[in-house]
């Protein structure tokens, strides 16, 4: 078993009586890549700041390697942070930024040797592909380069844990993908535990060993990316991770669920007979067939070309589904659908039931998703926004 490195027990955090974290229990293993995933305001950054030492939980304990560290200030924690906006020292050049932590280190009261500092900084510049940049002014670097300096500045101290607060948020799509791969390989090469905060579910799925989905200051689900995607615990998780059609169903018996009056085979077990449930159907798990041979029949009411596939909206008995397909189905086409048993996922009814997974207002929903991705730019542009009716 992997060694446990950090543990949060019953952590609770509030600002001015507004609870931002509640009942947080989490352990993080050594050498793990763990992602805190959730929408803005879900408490994920607060949790990171508690681990970094910038905030103290109102109640509950934080342990590092078995030692309670609630009262240990940030500069005494074996943890380094990559801040959202990099927080590079603008009065220092690239070399001095990266050397900042090393110059503060004391070995039995002695400063580190100048040669050692030089060698370690140079080594790190190579890791982040910034060789030859050491004399540059950090304010003159591009976003991606500044990001690399921030990574180098943290990693050069060889922390046990690296905290990353939406580090790729300000980069464009291409660069993001490249940096995702790079961060992942740095993590694997160094064996440093990464705690990564993001609202981008794709990023979380692609990079993490463990994903912690958060909403409303509460952990909704902890699991591997596959678990989270395939076996979401509630409607919030199902909706937040990828696209999901979430419909009401009735569990007839183990392996049989009724949706829209039709019985479907599924793999889920252990529900009461005739128990009302939430049924999650991923858009890519739906097969389009001729209307006659389909289990359900519906009409295409919308289509969007997404490159590899089409997103189509299909109306079944007034409830609209999102289906992804490579076939072209023009608006107005009547289609039938089939769903394999492993494409159906059953969830117990819960607090989030009925709030997510309906594509009746499809276009609006997509706007929301893209809003979340460009949150930072959005703040300035909010006034320019308009909704066409």
């Amino acid at each position, binding site marked *: 078993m992997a060694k446990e490195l950090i543990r949060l027990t019953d952590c609770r955090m509030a600002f001015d009586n507004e609870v931002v974290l509640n009942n947080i229990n989490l352990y993080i293993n050594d050498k793990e890549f763990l992602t805190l995933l959730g929408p803005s305001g879900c408490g994920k950054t607060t949790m990171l700041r508690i681990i970094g030492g910038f905030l103290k939980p109102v109640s509950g304990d934080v342990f590092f390697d078995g030692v309670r560290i609630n009262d240990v200030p940030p500069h005494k924690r074996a943890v380094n942070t990559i801040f959202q906006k990099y927080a590079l020292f603008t009065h*220092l050049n690239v070399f001095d930024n990266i050397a900042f932590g090393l110059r503060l280190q004391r070995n039995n009261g002695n400063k580190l040797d100048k040669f050692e500092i030089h060698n370690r900084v140079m080594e790190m510049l190579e890791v982040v592909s910034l060789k030859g940049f050491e004399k540059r002014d950090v304010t003159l670097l591009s976003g991606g380069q500044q990001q690399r300096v921030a990574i180098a500045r943290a990693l050069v101290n060889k922390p046990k844990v690296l905290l990353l607060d939406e580090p790729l948020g300000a980069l464009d799509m291409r660069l993001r993908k490249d940096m995702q791969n790079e961060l992942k390989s740095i993590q694997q090469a160094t064996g440093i535990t990464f705690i990564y905060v993001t609202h981008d579910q794709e990023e979380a799925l692609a990079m993490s060993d463990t994903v912690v989905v958060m909403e409303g200051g509460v952990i909704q689900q902890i699991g591997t990316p596959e678990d989270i995607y395939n076996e979401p615990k509630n409607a919030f998780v199902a909706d937040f991770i990828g696209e999901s059609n979430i419909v009401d169903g009735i569990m007839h018996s183990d392996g049989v669920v009724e949706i829209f009056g039709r019985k479907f085979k599924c793999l889920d077990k252990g529900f009461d007979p005739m128990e009302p449930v939430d049924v999650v159907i991923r858009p890519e798990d739906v097969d389009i067939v001729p209307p006659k041979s389909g289990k359900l029949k519906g009409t295409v009411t919308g289509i969007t070309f997404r490159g590899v596939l089409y997103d189509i909206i299909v109306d079944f008995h007034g409830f609209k589904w999102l289906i992804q397909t490579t076939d072209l189905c023009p608006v107005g086409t009547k289609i039938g659908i089939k769903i394999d048993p492993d494409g159906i996922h059953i969830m117990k009814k819960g607090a989030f039931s009925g709030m997510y997974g309906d594509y009746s207002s499809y276009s609006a929903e997509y706007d929301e998703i893209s809003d979340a991705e460009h949150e930072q730019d959005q703040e300035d542009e909010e006034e320019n926004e308009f909704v066409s009716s």
Partner: protein
Amino acid sequence: MKPKYFSIPYIVWMGIFVVAPIFFVVVYAFTTADGYPTLQNFAAMSRFTPVFIRSFLLAFISTVICILIGYPVAYILSREGKRVQRLMIMLIVLPMWMNFLLRTYAWMSILENTGLLNRFLAFLGLPALNIINTPTAVVIGMVYNFLPFMILPVYSVIVKIDRSLFEAAQDLGANNFSVFRKVVFPMSLPGVLSGIMMVFVPAVSTFVITQLLGGGMVMMLGDLIEMQFLGTAYNPQLGSAIALVMMFIVIVFMYFVNRFGQSDEKAVGA
């Protein structure tokens, strides 16, 4: 109208009120009363060397005291809550709304031999201090009058430093003192430099403070120049020469201060 025409009024203004006066000062400095070119005015200045030294020394002392008082005030202020900051800035600026002469007269009545300060000392049973009409009184007056011009630029630079930089420094192992030494201080130097500029330059050429608090015993360059233009020693040519030399020394001084500031900024942490 093309945008560049907007600058014309300013150029005209600068020409009339900045360039032309300097031009006349230069012309006066290099001519005799009859209008013949000469260097005599500069040669005649050597007897005022003690005044030059005193002026620059007192201005230097005042500037240093302003930094020693003003920097901590600005730093502490920047760490307070928004409301406290606004209130304190008000209080710092408030005296400047009162007439300069009035403020200086007030200091006269504090520092006089029978003034408030000595009466207070007597009340405590301490010996009286003779401050009025000494360089000390002039320095006190200058520090009092120019302190806001040190606090405000330093403060406005420090409050603009991104808080996340302090956190980044702490995160990298800096305790509070190191955060100050390696981040806050080097990043606030531009504010200190403009503070020095705004205190030192008027301090060198100050004149009313010296007359009221120095009682005419502490003559500085400002008094000297004033005497040449308005006083009994009427000699505008000599006054212009003195003003020109003073300006030259100030420019050289500021150049080195700026150079020092820039190189220091880069060298911190090395």
